């Protein structure tokens, strides 16, 4: 057993969980690569990194939500394999996911003991349930009445329910993925106290977070990840927000970006938003000029996608205006935006982009059928030719246009969505994470597509959570935080440290 001979990290007195040489790929994209770390019993261990650095993936592997491709998980020095979260729970490891699951019709106590209720003759023993809840809440130090119905709970209290649920299942290690992301400051501080109390009581907490201040205040040890690799694990006392941030930067994958063409000085503004407000978006104003790639960077949950959807009329705006080439966008729905020349490549190609069961050809021609038909009937030969030429332009060779689009690889599916846009020929393209989940080769091809679209006079709003690609492609970068444009950078000021700093809300902000 080679695994057993791997020495524990020096300086850890009471190792509880050890991850050894963990690797995980998703469809050709490496999310984690040779990551090893040790979590001490009763400690608060933070995982930090940029979007996509692999911190959430690592948390999920720990909790049995996903299985690693290779590597080994040791629990108290003993190798374990979790095939499901259930198996992890039986070994005392519970994850509290970002999406909370509190049944609205049940009371707090019923929620906590859901599935493990004390029973008598098949009926829930209410009094016993109540007593056990009070004991549990007292042990955890929570002041949360067990009688409150689930639907009245605020997010912070729902989290307490999840934590109590974990504790009543005898959890010894709780993985929390961005627990404070949806919380206001007072609630976040309350949750911090809860986490400290858990650790003091001997429960181990693995905290996945992109709030560096929180990590610095709360954690005993910090593991920094970058591009799926371990940078270092160190005592939190030795780290500051600045040292963590600088270690998260500087992915040196050597990706090359196509040369940017300068935007002509007199290039007209093709997309203009003024005071745009929608759910998750507050008072955003921005301009995109013809031939310009404007990068929109922000952390997960900063409102990037919401902004994109509001710009394309996929989400109704509650205030503000969007103008394309000087003409205000009227009418409702993406149909109206597309008619005005604003097209979108959505964030999730499976859920919002492609009709997976339908042929490749139909997927590509969908947005241009009006042009490819006579008297309401599709001119199939013209369609086939147009689709073939668009696919050729984006560099996808297909076995047959009639094959379901689901038979294409992830990268080619993404390119097929670009082919749809090319065929439609819009004035503005809002591309939301167009390189997510594709391999390096397809990424490069998509960079070239975006650049050549801009060179042809399209205005491009390029949304990404990969700071490097935003900097490599965009003429100008907008950074979003908490639903607002927090900063704008151009020219020399466009550095990774600057945009990450603005996105994380570090002191110096931006221009």
């Amino acid at each position, binding site marked *: 057993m080679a695994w057993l001979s791997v020495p524990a990290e020096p300086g850890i007195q009471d190792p509880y969980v050890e991850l050894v040489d963990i690797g995980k790929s998703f469809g050709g*994209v490496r999310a984690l690569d040779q990551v090893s770390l040790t979590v001490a019993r009763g400690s608060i261990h933070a995982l930090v990194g940029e979007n996509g650095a692999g911190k959430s993936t690592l948390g999920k592997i720990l909790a049995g939500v996903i299985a690693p491709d290779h590597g080994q998980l040791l629990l108290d020095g003993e190798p374990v394999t979790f095939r499901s979260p259930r198996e992890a729970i039986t070994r005392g490891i519970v994850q509290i996911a970002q999406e909370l699951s509190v049944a609205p019709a049940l009371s707090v106590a019923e929620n906590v003991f859901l599935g493990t209720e004390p029973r008598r003759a098949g009926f829930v023993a209410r009094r016993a349930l109540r007593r056990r809840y009070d004991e549990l809440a007292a042990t955890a130090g929570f002041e949360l009445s067990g009688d409150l119905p689930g639907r009245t709970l605020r997010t912070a209290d729902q989290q307490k329910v999840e934590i109590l649920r974990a504790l009543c299942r005898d959890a010894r290690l709780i993985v929390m993925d961005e627990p404070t992301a949806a919380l206001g400051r007072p609630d976040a501080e309350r949750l911090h106290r809860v986490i400290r109390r858990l650790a003091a009581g001997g429960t181990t907490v693995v905290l996945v977070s992109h709030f560096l201040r929180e990590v610095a205040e709360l954690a005993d040890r910090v593991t920094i990840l970058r591009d799926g690799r371990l940078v270092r694990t160190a005592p939190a006392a030795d780290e500051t927000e600045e040292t963590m941030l600088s270690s998260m930067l500087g992915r040196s994958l050597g990706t090359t970006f196509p040369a940017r063409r300068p935007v002509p000085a007199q290039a007209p503004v093709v997309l203009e938003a003024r005071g745009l407000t929608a759910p998750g978006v507050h008072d955003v104003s921005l301009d995109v000029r013809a031939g310009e790639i404007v990068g929109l960077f922000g952390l997960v949950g900063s409102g990037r996608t919401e902004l994109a959807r509001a710009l394309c009329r996929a989400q109704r705006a509650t205030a503000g205006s969007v103008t394309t080439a000087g003409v205000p966008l009227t009418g409702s729905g993406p149909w109206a935006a597309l008619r005005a020349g604003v097209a979108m490549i959505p964030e999730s190609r499976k859920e919002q*982009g492609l009709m997976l069961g339908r042929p490749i050809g139909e997927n590509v021609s969908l947005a241009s059928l009006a042009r490819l038909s006579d008297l*309401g009937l599709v001119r199939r030969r013209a369609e086939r030719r147009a689709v073939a030429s668009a696919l050729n332009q984006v560099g996808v060779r297909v076995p047959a246009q009639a094959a379901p689009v689901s038979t294409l690889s992830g990268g080619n599916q993404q390119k097929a969505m670009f082919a749809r846009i090319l065929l439609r020929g819009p004035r503005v393209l809002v591309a939301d994470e167009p390189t997510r989940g594709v391999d390096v080769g397809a990424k490069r091809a998509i960079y070239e597509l975006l650049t050549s679209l801009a060179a042809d006079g399209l205005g491009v709003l390029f949304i990404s959570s990969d700071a490097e690609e935003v900097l490599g492609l965009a003429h100008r970068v907008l950074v979003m935080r908490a639903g607002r444009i927090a900063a704008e950078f151009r020219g020399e000021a466009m550095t990774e440290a600057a945009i990450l700093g603005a996105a994380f809300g570090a002191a110096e902000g931006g221009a």
Partner: protein
Amino acid sequence: MDQQDLKQAKTGRGLPSLRPSAALASGLRRAGILYPFLILFIVLSVWSAPFFTKVNLLDILDQQSSTLIIAAAGTLVLVAGGIDLSVGAVYALAGVTAAHLALFASPAVAIVAGIAVGLGVGLVNGVIVTVFRINALIATLASSFVVSGLASLVTGGNLVIDYSRPGFADLARSSFLTVNTSTWTMLAVVVALGVVLSRSTTGRYIYASGSNAEAARLSGVRVQLIKLITFVLSGGAAALGGVIDASRVLSAQASNGETTLTFTVLAGIVVGGTSILGGEGAMWRTVVGVLFIALIGNGFDLLGLNPLYEQIALGGILLIAVGYDAWSRLRQS
């Protein structure tokens, strides 16, 4: 250097690869119901002398004409991701409306009014589903009760008899090239809706809406409008079926068809291989599916089998069809 090598290793190839299991599943799905249908057809031809005769085959087609018309429009509804449980009730309401009007108005007025009633109900169904975003299953189930009630109001609970107005029978009973007009009407409707589904832009939008409504919406398809259109067509087709059958027998009553018809139509569409989950299906499938069920009934008659077993067989076939659809979708994803 190390990282550079890794990057090379990670780089994907340019050529797309076709996953064999998905290709197999879609191939099987394509053939689907055709084999069982042909086998049943041949078996009946061999076992029963009266089966493979022009009279019997035309009879089957004629009997199924209203079912096929309703199922043709129902196919559009299902492909678009909806469902219409009100067709049986609309069929009855349109039948009694036309039959009632035929008593004192011209047959043309009666026919047009009957169909208009169906289009109206279809529009209401469509608005409830698309504007008020009420689940199609519940919305059309509710409207089927309302429509049934309206049909009873029209007749006052009685059978409407048009024996005194033989002109009303021309819609179904006149014949052209030895084939009944009702069969011709059915063929025209099925071909027309088949062309809409497979050749028109509207048809593409129907598939897109049912396959991935959000993707279709973001590609500029007015998904709700498309769904609304399918409900209007479904209501109109149900009414046409009701009017044709009322014309055939020169009478109608409010309890005609109703749930049995609704489920026969749905069963035919689904047995044909059109998915109840939307986005998949074809007109020829529906035709084969409806006729397959009709052949089973015809076979029970001709072979003198106990008709009690017919329903049991139908239920089993329906389960197999839906199970097969779920299975092949699972393969595909």
